[in-house]
């Protein structure tokens, strides 16, 4: 699943409404026929984090974190501790030392603190205040049992909230996002640059770590908006609205072009990108855009993801969530749109540190079919989470969280519960 956050500063061209794809009320393929509104936040809800199959956390500008039960919509915990908007949240996965069901939640806020919460009891475990500036991003490396905070510098912590090591301060910018790379490497975005660090554990007893800067990928024209790992060898960098860069990440001695291509063939084939109001599907194999929808929403798309059920979901500032399906196009339709002028694709050439931009002539092979839209929010939908058995959760600037469920499934589920309850009562009655 790809997560894509794109900011379009200058694509807000006046678009005629009629151009935006519309779907009527009849949406036979739309499974979400039941909704439940979760109220609690008093300001924009910006983040949601998946905890387990039944729970998720939500956080936003009111500084409060709520833990919800996705099945019943009950509010399980209300975590209060931050005085300013929350800037990042992350869930500690089940670490070996902890109980299997015990989960920790990290929250960073613009009040320059990070709090670690116990999700089962809803209590604060650690409160970290030794930050010079607010933490913008949090990353957990499960493998190493550490977590990193990114602000004016990158700090590495262990589960007991002890500082292991930190980098020097970045001059004029903060770390806005980080991803984990193989072999204890981390890529951090600092405005126009991508900096790659390496984490080195010095000795396991003393818990002393070292972080060193490996490489700095600069020369980007604009701020980098998104960063994703394609495979072990390459990362995907997106910056200025219309430009997507794909670059192999070389870790010294393995810049094999062959490996680069084959690895992608087997694993992830498509990259879904939201640019402005449009959605684009880029095929890594053919290195072409295979499907696009230029006016997918009325307004900027804020979050896009491919769900396990093969639906592509996008949410937007216009307050709607749309469901798409990638369908085969009837063959005889070559794409003639000039749209792809704005597409650039970084391709590994002879010079590895340099981004080669090249326009691709792409052939549209597939089409993005709108199969449904979810209307409920009255403000921009910030993001969504998908639960396999319980549908989807969306959060929005209108302070609400909405659970979208498959009505049929829910009905079945209730029947099951009903008969379970009957059986229990019967047993209880028989035991008396």
């Amino acid at each position, binding site marked *: 699943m790809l997560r894509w956050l794109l900011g379009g500063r200058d694509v807000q061209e006046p678009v005629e409404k009629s151009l935006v794809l519309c779907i*009527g*009320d*009849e*949406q*036979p393929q*739309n499974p979400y*026929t*039941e*909704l*439940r*509104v*979760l*109220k609690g936040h008093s300001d924009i809800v910006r983040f949601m984090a998946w905890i387990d199959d039944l729970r998720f956390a939500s956080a936003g500008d009111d500084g409060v974190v709520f833990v919800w039960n996705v099945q*019943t*919509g*009950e*509010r399980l915990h209300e975590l209060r501790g931050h005085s300013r908007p929350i800037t990042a949240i992350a869930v500690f996965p089940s670490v070996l030392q902890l109980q299997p069901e015990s989960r920790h939640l990290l929250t960073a806020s613009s009040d320059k603190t990070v709090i670690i919460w116990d999700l089962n009891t809803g209590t604060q475990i650690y409160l970290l205040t030794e930050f010079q500036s607010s933490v913008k991003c949090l990353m957990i490396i499960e493998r190493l049992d550490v977590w990193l905070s990114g602000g004016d510098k990158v700090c590495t912590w262990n589960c007991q909230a002890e500082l292991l090591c930190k980098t020097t301060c970045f001059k004029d910018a903060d770390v806005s996002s980080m991803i984990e790379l193989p072999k204890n490497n981390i890529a951090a975005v600092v405005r126009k640059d991508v900096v790659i660090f390496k984490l080195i554990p010095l000795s396991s007893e003393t818990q002393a770590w070292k972080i060193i800067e490996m490489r700095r990928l600069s020369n980007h024209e604009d701020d980098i908006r998104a960063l994703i790992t394609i495979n072990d060898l390459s990362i995907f960098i997106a910056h200025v609205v219309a430009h997507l860069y794909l670059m192999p990440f070389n870790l010294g001695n393995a810049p094999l072009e062959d490996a680069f291509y084959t690895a992608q063939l087997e694993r992830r084939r498509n990259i879904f990108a939201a640019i402005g109001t449009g959605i684009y599907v880029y095929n890594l194999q053919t290195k072409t855009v295979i499907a696009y929808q230029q006016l997918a929403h009325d307004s900027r798309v804020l979050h896009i993801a491919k769900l396990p059920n093969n639906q592509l979901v996008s949410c937007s500032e216009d307050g709607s969530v749309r469901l798409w399906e990638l369908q085969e196009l009837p063959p005889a339709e070559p794409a003639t749109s000039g749209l792809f002028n704005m597409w650039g694709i970084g391709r590994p050439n002879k010079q590895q540190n340099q981004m080669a931009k090249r326009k691709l002539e792409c052939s549209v092979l597939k089409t993005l079919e709108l199969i*449904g839209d979810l*209307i*409920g*929010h*009255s403000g921009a939908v910030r993001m969504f989470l998908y639960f396999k058995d319980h549908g989807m959760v969306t959060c929005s600037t209108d302070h*609400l969280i*909405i659970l979208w*469920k498959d*009505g049929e499934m*829910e*009905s*079945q589920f*209730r*029947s*099951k*519960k*009903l*008969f379970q*309850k*009957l*059986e229990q*009562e*019967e047993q*209880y*009655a*028989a035991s*008396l």
Partner: protein
Amino acid sequence: MITAPDVVALTHEDDYEEQYRDDSMPPFQFQPENPWSKTATAKFEKDFILISEFSEQVGPQPLLTIPENARDNFDLNYFSLRIMSVDYQASFVGHPPGTSYPKLNFVEDSKVVLGDSKEGAFAYVHHLTLYDLEARGFVRPFCVAYISADENKIMQQFQELSDDFSKASECLKTGNRKAFATELEKKLQDLEYTRNVLHNETEIQKRSNDKGYYSSVAIEKANELANVEKCIIEHEDLLMQIRTYSHKKTKDAHYFSYEPEYGTEPSDTGLGHQSNESCDKINFSNSRSYTPKFTRAKSAKCFEKKLKTLEELCDSYFFNQTLEQLKQVEKFFRGDVCYLITSQIEKLLLQQQRLTSFLFEDTLFFDKERTEKQQRCDKPLPVFNILSPKDLEHPCLSNEAASFESYKSCVESVPIKLDQQVNEESYHGTVADSIPCKNPPGASDYLELEGKEKGSVSSGESIEVLGTEKSCPAPIFSKSDSQTNLQCQHPEIVRRKFVVTKRTNSEDSIEVLCTTESLIPEDFKATCPSAIYEEDNTLDNEEEKQLSTDLVQSDANLNHSNGFSKADFENNTIMLPVLSEPVDSPCCIGKESPNFTKSVSTFVTEEYNDGVVNVPPQRSKTIDQIFHSDFPQQDDRNGLYGADDQVLSTYEKKYSDVPGTGETVQIPVDEYLDNMSYISASLCSDRTPSPALPNCPIKRLSGKHKKQSGRNSLWFIRQYSFAQQAIFSLLTGRMLVIVGEQEGKVKKLVNALSTFVPNCGSDSDSIKQWVTFPLHINHLQTWKLIGLQRIASPLGTSILHSLNRYSRYISILDCDNKTLRCPQYKGLLITRLADHRTQIKRGSTYYMHVHNMLTQLCSQAFLYTFCHHLHLPVDERETEESVTCRRVNFLKHHLGLMNDDSKIVQYFADLIKMRYLHEPAKGVNPVLRFNYTSSSVFKI
């Protein structure tokens, strides 16, 4: 609506030709008498309650009536004479042989039914005695009478009347005891003061006396002093008696009728607990600041002074409380007896339908009941409530109560130690123990025991039927002799027993203990067959119709002949609290019934608020078989009429033989008891803030509401050709917004359509008459029918914008342009429900028609919901598709629902499921269900 009273009437009386006189009235609900009544000679229109006194000065005199102007040209004085002249065990205070002090005789009230040919009136007369220090023998006899032109009504409702009046009487008497005690205290202070004065005077005389002999004055003074001292002793004794009595009473679980209510909630009379307390305080302070007067030892002549009024006699708070109660009683018993009984039956049946009744029945009623039940569980037991601080703080009460010698003699006054802990622990156990008592016949031997027990002190409650013209053919009372305490109702018995088991250490009460406990097993056996099987919901249409006709018949029986057979009732699975049935029949059923032990075990589950539903898992039969197997049973049942004892056993066998029908609902016993007591508003109802009948205001309200909305609905379906589409939206849970400029018009439409809104939550927020702000997504979850203002302003635009945004979730009825935008309805059901060419003329009739159909739908939904195989695979190999297929088949072929009709039932089923699973959890919004279907626009 399970039974329509007008149908009842029509089926029985063939020569009923009179048309409804007042179109605005639902039939029989407010009509004073039944049109075919033979008591046309009555000189009054409506029933009323009369309170009169046998005054020692002027003889029998009427004091007041409720309602005040109800008497017309009825001769109250004559009737007072009539009812007061009935001989009953007048209490007598005096010097019983062997005692030197006057003894207060705490008599029980007596209850008498009498008829008067001259006035064409029949009355239930409740005699009671109040204490007055200034009255002859300290007592003043009063009576409260319920007077009606319909003899049947009095006889049929005797139990209810008796319970209600006992409650009212107890309220009066409590107030009276309080007032009497206060009066005695004052008198004592006077006497003390007098004694002191006299004492001083004698001392002075003694000192001044140097002659060595006593002057006549001195002797007179000494005599006077002795007199006063004797008086003091007598009064102290009286005071102790009255206090220990009330204290004693409180221990008798029989009489916690209303005191706890004062303690817990403000009463509906506006005189809350606080005012009660403050009133007490005032009284106490009064008694303390009371300045004693010098009194002559001789009592004043009665005839010279004005006797106290009833209000003075009873403490005005209690007096008003009683009046309030009686007003409620009067309200409750308004209307024809047929209507009363029908509504009682209806309520009983509805209470067995808890799983579905929330959809369209009076939710207030059920919710209230539930919350009350919860309160009751939470509350400490009423026995303790009555020993409230108020009582304990009462001056000298604690001292006096400690000396128990005075009432050693009688069983009732055995000192009982109440141990709260023991009590609370034993609560569940005792409830379980007492469950068997639910059945009147099973409890009847116990009743007798009660009567005997009581007999040692008082005469017991005697019932005399003084039918003047003809003797009443009343099998109800055939069992009752003067010793039997008919007043004891099942719930009371439960509590009584409970109290008995609580008596932890009392040597004197050993006998009582033994008898009660030895009774238990027997009771248990005898009463278990009274399992209430609810089956209406599981029935097919035909069967349900059958059932309702059964009901009608039995109603008719009830109304016009008292000699109905018990079988009718058993067959319909109703137990009327009015009836005291023969003892033997349940016993033999108990032996015969193969189901017996099983049903016992299910009873004891008292924690299920919503009733226990047992669906025995049944794997061998397919759905088809199950439902076909219903029909032969159906036939069986027709043949069952008239059969007496066999009826029940066959009936039970049916259930045991065919477990596949599955959906037999068994109402837990204590719930049943609750229902009973609820209906009969029994004496010991401790759950309601008002001692009066709690359900009547609601009932009346809903009666008016029904009439009104029925008429509006009728108007709507005639005026608007797209009514069916709109109703379909409501019945499938799609919100209907009525947009319009004129508030009145919109509200009328909302009212017209409100009949069709399934009540999807405990909060009846689903209807909003007039909304003036833009809709929001969370409104859509709770509201199902709203009126929305259309105005030309920025706000109006944003309102319309919100409508446009959420248009897929809502149907919009434009009131000004008379257009409707909603999904099209394809089906038959609503065509019948809302036929614009309907022949129905009256609003209330149409309301009943609608409810009839909706109830039918509910029962279908119930069946659909609780059919195991429709939702879960029979075995693991079965795929989800085949279950779905079965479901569709079921809806189509078994329930006969075409197209969109099945959607309605499915929606209902979902509501039932959610309700049963207690969803949504507290503090969570309900879900909004919707479909992605296109809407069309309809015009007139």
